[in-house]
């Protein structure tokens, strides 16, 4: 701080601090405090705000326990409140998408980092970047067309005789998973590539010379080295999935709700901003817990993830 004053003087230092404070206080911290505070207040008509009815309670949070529905896991059937079901469904399917993107991205990242000749790398990266620059909504819209009941995928599969009757792809969470994997797989490729690329190729060759089979090299040498990349890729993909609103709305069937859609219904359809705030806060807690767990498992710091 002393340094800053000596180099740039009082005026500029004050400007740096002022701008940073505006960002962190006005744009980040205070809005979140407001979110937290309003989530405990009831949704009231304007005249009653601040009146005797305006008291703090957990009522907004209790709304997740309303409306039970049947859920069957394996052969057992439970009665579970619908919002709880959606909440855990979102966690489950986001995790599933994260695992699928890892399985798809790992060979590709390894290929880009260690197999392909460095000369063709920039061109390959460019080809990978083009779909990333096309907006998320258009990418999910593309799958909306492909997966349609009378769409090109069914036509193709019927023509080559793989299926006898058209398949209803947009049912349950299937199409949401397809869309999320397609939209976010590149967010797994690049962190993995960065991590594997920093591994000294001599280490792989040494393992080969010592007679290790290829899977053991991956297990003992490459995967441990790629840990920070796996962590940051997983965090990115999971967060984007759990927070996605576009893909589930576009590709989800009516039976496949995403937690962000529930939040959106409270906010924009029921216009109950306080319950919306409570639900948004739950989503925030979920994400915070997920990041902490990943950081603990992979023993990485926040600065390794956010790059």
């Amino acid at each position, binding site marked *: 701080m002393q340094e800053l004053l000596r*180099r740039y003087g009082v005026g500029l230092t004050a400007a740096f601090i002022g701008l940073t404070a505006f960002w962190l206080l006005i744009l980040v911290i205070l809005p*979140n405090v407001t979110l937290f505070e309003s989530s405990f207040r009831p949704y009231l008509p304007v005249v009653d705000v601040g009146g005797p009815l305006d008291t703090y309670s957990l009522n907004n949070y209790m709304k997740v326990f309303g409306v039970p529905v049947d859920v069957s896991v394996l052969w057992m059937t439970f009665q579970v409140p619908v919002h709880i079901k959606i909440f855990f469904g979102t966690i489950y399917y986001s995790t599933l998408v994260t695992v699928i993107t890892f399985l798809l991205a790992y060979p590709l990242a390894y290929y880009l980092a260690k197999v392909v000749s460095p000369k063709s790398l920039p061109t390959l990266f460019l080809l990978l970047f083009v779909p990333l620059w096309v907006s998320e909504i*258009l990418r999910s819209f*593309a799958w909306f067309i492909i997966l349609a009941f009378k769409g*090109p995928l069914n036509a193709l599969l019927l023509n080559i005789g793989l299926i006898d009757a058209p398949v209803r792809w947009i049912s349950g969470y299937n199409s949401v998973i397809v869309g999320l994997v397609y939209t976010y797989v590149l967010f797994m490729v690049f962190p993995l590539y960065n991590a594997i690329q920093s591994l000294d190729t001599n280490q792989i060759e040494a393992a080969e010379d010592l007679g290790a089979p290829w899977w053991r090299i991956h297990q003992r040498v490459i995967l441990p080295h790629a840990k920070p990349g796996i962590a940051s890729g997983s965090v990115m993909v999971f967060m984007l999935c759990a927070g996605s609103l576009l893909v589930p709305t576009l590709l989800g069937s009516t039976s496949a709700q995403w937690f962000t859609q529930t939040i959106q219904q409270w906010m924009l359809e029921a216009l109950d*901003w306080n319950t919306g705030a409570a639900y948004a806060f739950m989503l925030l807690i979920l994400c915070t817990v997920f990041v902490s767990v990943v950081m603990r498992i992979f023993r990485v710091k926040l600065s390794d993830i956010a790059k």
Partner: protein
Amino acid sequence: MHKNRNLAFHLYMALFLAYLLIPLIIMGGAAFNDSKLPTVYPWKGYTDQWFIDLWNDNRIWIAFRNTILVAVAVAAISVPIGTAAAILINSLGGRIRSALYGIMVAPILAPGAVIGISTLLFWNKFSVPAGLHLSVLGQVSYIAAFVMLLVLARLQSFDHSLEEAALDLGATHSQVMRRIMLPHLYPAIGAGAAIAFFQSIENFNITLFTRGNADTLTVYVFSKVRSGITPTINALALLLILFTLGLAVWYELNRRRKARIEAAREAEGRRAEEAALL
């Protein structure tokens, strides 16, 4: 054995690229299909109807203008904030630094819906109505973090003794900033502005909750897709993809030209060296 393995890898790469690109081609192709629903199958013949419809769609032009305005505003606000935050955090150490860093990068990981709703509720307390101005503020809250990370990385290669020298030679504080620090940071600031602009165009979640009644392109396309789609959206998508592709090709050609010049210079240097040795 390596040869077989490499072949499998090349094949995988090709399949992956096909997986990424074919959906975009199908979507673009549907823009020319003479069918009321956006699809490529069954093919009902070529038409340019959807491009004409797109051109005549007033709402889309308004949404387009809004998107650009928001993106320019976001870039204009995020760049000074991100740069100031990077310079500030770079001069700190220890606990305060990591705590501040944590608060700064957290918005990147927070779900857009949460940022949007908290921004809406906060400004609502001061009776500021929803609208694109709130979308700008919400987007800045996480986009400024990208600028901060880029500038912070660039600051690592900055030689502070340059500033010392300037101060010793009698430069004022603002001269040190303008003539020494900022010129060093320009590449990072430029990249930050570009990222801010494109991130803002892409943004959907924050905008949806804060926009009020105004449309941006993503929100407009979203409402269209839900309320009965026509292939005008495909026409728009194709134009956007071609624009992206154009940018990518331009970037690649630029890179190759630079690499060629670099190679030519190196060759020249080698020749000069050899001549000197002779």
